[in-house]
């Protein structure tokens, strides 16, 4: 029977590096994937994942079994990724301030127009690129919520802890995120001849605590 994360972490705390190696093997792929989806660069994602594992290793002596390991792991990963994104954005802003071009006027992302048919989009761009761009264009919290919910299959309670909000707020956040994606990716998911209007964002919006 496989040992639980908590058990492995407690063994690592007691000085067993082999148990930490088990945790590394268990979470290397989900962690690198999550970070890659956040920062969109494989080398940066691996650097950040290494830093996450190092931080967990350094903090092993203070580990308390009360906290779920994955919540802790992805919370560190989320903070590191957000810091990296903000640093990069800041550097890009500095570059764009120095530049004389008028690229600022261009949209940050080109999303397919709703009228485009799927075959046209396929000619224009790969489907996966379109999907990635749509997810990347979500507001920060919505994006993290979708990545943890859809790709890491974490439960609401865990995601809410990573995002520091209530479960009810998280459900609304996820609804708004998927509603945006449904509209943006309508050429890929649309059923109706005339599109189903999006529910106004305010309707499903809860105050994040």
């Amino acid at each position: 029977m496989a040992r639980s994360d908590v058990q492995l972490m407690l063994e690592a705390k007691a000085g067993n590096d082999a148990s930490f190696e088990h945790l590394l093997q268990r979470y290397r792929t989900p962690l690198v994937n999550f970070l890659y989806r956040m920062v969109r660069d494989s080398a940066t994602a691996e650097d950040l994942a290494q830093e996450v594992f190092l931080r967990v290793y350094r903090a092993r002596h203070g580990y308390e079994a009360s906290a779920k390991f994955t919540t802790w792991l992805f919370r560190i990963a989320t903070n590191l990724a957000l810091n990296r994104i903000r640093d990069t954005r800041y550097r890009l802003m500095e570059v764009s301030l120095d530049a004389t071009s008028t690229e600022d006027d261009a949209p940050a992302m080109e999303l397919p127009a709703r009228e485009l048919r799927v075959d046209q989009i396929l000619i224009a761009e790969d489907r996966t690129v379109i999907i990635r761009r749509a997810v990347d264009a979500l507001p920060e919290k919505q994006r993290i919520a979708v990545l943890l919910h859809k790709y890491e299959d974490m439960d609401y309670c865990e995601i809410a802890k990573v995002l520091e909000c209530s479960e009810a707020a998280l459900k609304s956040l996820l609804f708004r995120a998927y509603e945006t994606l449904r509209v943006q990716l309508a050429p890929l998911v649309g059923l109706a001849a005339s599109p189903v209007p999006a529910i106004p964002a305010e309707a499903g919006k809860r105050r994040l605590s």
Partner: protein
Amino acid sequence: MKYEMNCERISESLIPYLDGRASAAEQREVEAHASVCAACKTRIEEFRRLSVVLEEVPRMEPSGAFDARVRQAIAAEPRAGWFGWLVPAPRFAFALVCLLLLSVWTSRIEPNVSEATAGATQSEQDFRLIKDLDVLENYDVVKNFDALSELPVAQQTQTRTDSNQNEDQNGHI
């Protein structure tokens, strides 16, 4: 209190419903609303399709060098040594070090304090001696010390001055 499901309220229940994590009551409400609202029925189906579409994005596998780099970084971390037992309680260790430093500092500072006190006492005695020097050197005062011992110092000084004046007057006579 029972709320009637509508297009706005569905936002709170739709994700748990699609995940199969909604309560039985929530599930019934969503299904009842979808049976009378064509837009929400389509929305639910499009959400299901969206879930499949999002899975088209391939997962990436970490490079072969990744594990080696993490292991190398962990191996470079300092190991717990003789004082490793202090690491689980860093606050206790810090408090212990502070206490030790404080006790060393206090033990070093104590002799200085007593020396300073002793020095101050000596100076005080010297000052009193100098203050009373003219009284002590006065022969008449010392001679009649028994009678004057009850008088305060200021009066003793005054008495000494008076007796000097008397001596001068006697001399003149």
